[in-house]
């Protein structure tokens, strides 16, 4: 993945896990096995309790049992619920087969994290555990990381909440809101204290498995083999591949259907993968603008 290497080379900025040298810890992450998720949302609640995240509004969606709807500034775990007229196992008889997929989504702690790359303040940081964390005392709320994340994980916290999501009117200097972005920290504070993240701790079925990413990948492959042997319908790993568009997720998944069914992108690519090329284009365009402006003077005086 030379693209990424160049980027880090160019910056020389310590956004790499490698730069911790002696303090570097094994890379930690999650393997979320959705085949055993019971949709209890204990992970959501545990996360909110531990991280003292504000309530996110009492909106009933009618989207099955999902009233959280998406990851955002006030939901760092989100359990998706998908009702399907499909059998759980391939050999299940009957046309009235039903299955109810549940999956707890979270920040992927990407190997190549767009959010971290694009953050202009260095607020987003790669920790010694290889995770990606927002430093809330540095974030100035520029919001760049929000559209940069290929998974739509980050969001700005609006407190007090605005009535809808339409942009507010000009000018907004001194608006009274939190304004910063928030997301899963992989419980950085707990890791430092030698504890597993709150969501994993609360998960009753071990659908959320916390550990060293390398080991989790092995485990995930074994799990997939088993499910395939047992004829599970649509089982696949998502984000386990270090050669994918974001260099593999620190928090990856076993899904039972296409990623987009769960609201996940099918082939996410870190946006900065194309940045060298984009800078090149910018340079050409800049040069052209320069030359073009000069050309405007060639006509001579009227």
């Amino acid at each position, binding site marked *: 993945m030379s693209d990424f290497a160049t980027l880090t080379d160019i910056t020389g900025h310590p956004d790499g896990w490698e730069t911790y040298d002696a303090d570097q810890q094994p890379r930690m992450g999650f393997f979320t096995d959705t085949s055993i998720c019971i949709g209890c949302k204990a992970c959501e609640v545990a996360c909110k309790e531990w991280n003292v995240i504000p309530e996110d509004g009492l909106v009933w969606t009618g989207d099955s049992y999902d009233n959280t709807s998406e990851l955002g500034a006030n939901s760092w775990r989100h359990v998706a619920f998908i009702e399907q007229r499909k059998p759980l196992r391939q050999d299940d008889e009957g046309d009235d087969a039903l299955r109810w997929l549940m999956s707890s989504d979270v920040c992927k702690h990407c190997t190549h994290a767009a959010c971290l790359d694009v953050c202009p303040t260095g607020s987003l940081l790669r920790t010694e555990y290889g995770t990606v964390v927002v430093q809330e005392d540095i974030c100035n709320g520029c919001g760049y990381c929000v*559209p940069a994340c290929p998974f739509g994980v980050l969001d700005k916290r609006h407190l007090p909440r605005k009535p809808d999501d339409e942009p507010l009117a000009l000018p907004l200097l001194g608006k009274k809101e939190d304004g910063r972005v928030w997301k899963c920290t992989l419980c950085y504070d707990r890791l430092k204290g030698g504890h597993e993240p709150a969501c994993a701790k609360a998960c009753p079925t071990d659908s959320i498995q916390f550990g060293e990413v390398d080991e989790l990948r092995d485990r995930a492959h074994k799990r997939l083999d088993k499910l395939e042997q047992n004829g599970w319908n649509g089982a696949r790993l998502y984000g386990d591949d270090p050669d994918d568009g974001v260099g593999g997720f620190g928090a990856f998944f076993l899904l039972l259907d296409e990623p*987009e069914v769960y609201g996940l992108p099918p*082939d996410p690519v870190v946006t900065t993968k194309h940045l060298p090329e984009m800078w090149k284009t910018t340079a050409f365009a800049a040069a052209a603008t320069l030359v073009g402006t000069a050309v405007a003077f060639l006509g001579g005086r009227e």
Partner: protein
Amino acid sequence: MSESITGVGTEMQSYYGRPIVKEPVWQPEIPTYLFTGGIAGGCSLLHGFARVAGYERLAKTALYVGAAADVVSPALLISDLGRPERFLNMLRVFKVTSPMSVGSWILFVSGGASNTAAALELVGRLRPVKWVAELVSFAAGAPLATYTGTLFADTAIPVWHEARKELPWLFGASAAASAGAATAIFLPPKESGPARRLAVAGVAVELGVMEAMQHRLGFVGEVYKKEAAGKLARASKVLTAAGAAALAARGRRSRGAAVAGSALVLAGELALRWSVFRAGFQSARDPRYTVIPQKQRKQQAQSK
């Protein structure tokens, strides 16, 4: 029940039709900034060349207009921050991986330089310092005019990211056109020739790039035909074309035509920035624009 959506040639599922990537959280300040930043960048160039070519009035006007735009621009950016008081954190680091970081430095340098130059010009003192400032401002002009294309392209917003080859060109042309028009407004026709020509050429290039970009975007590009982005794109096309035509046809002779043409171009450029801005939201909001290109890409990769 999960919704199924028909995409281009693909039956696609989505999660209750919800977006996958987040819409930007940027507010109206940002497209406005794109516009003012473009003016500032373009004016720096215009000013520099005018100085060299001996168009003193044009040079001075471009300097003042650019400096004014360079004052408004950071104000807009700061206003958009969730924590404006932490603006200086932008300058904590310099990150090539962050177009916003790069852009902040460019804006910082450009704004500092153009305002110093303008101030010194006004008071008529410290010539050598002014020259240096002018030189710096000139150097920052082209990057300032174009980096915003990459600022947008370097996101996961489909219609922006997929247009990464065009956006810098589009924004560069738009900056040139805006700067030309903004300067021409304040000058009698005989002083503003290069500015008008720049505006006309900028519009021409921009219309071409826009066409090419939409064509290359294919399915994703259809957001430029829909809703707010579509309306703004159409308005931009009509306004810029009309403005450029007026400038080209009668700008040399009639001051009134020059002013009207310039105003139309400026309005068109503002509409263009807004159109691109809104298109980003629209393409983020509808999961099809995220999913379908990615699926196609995946299928292609697999079939290889």
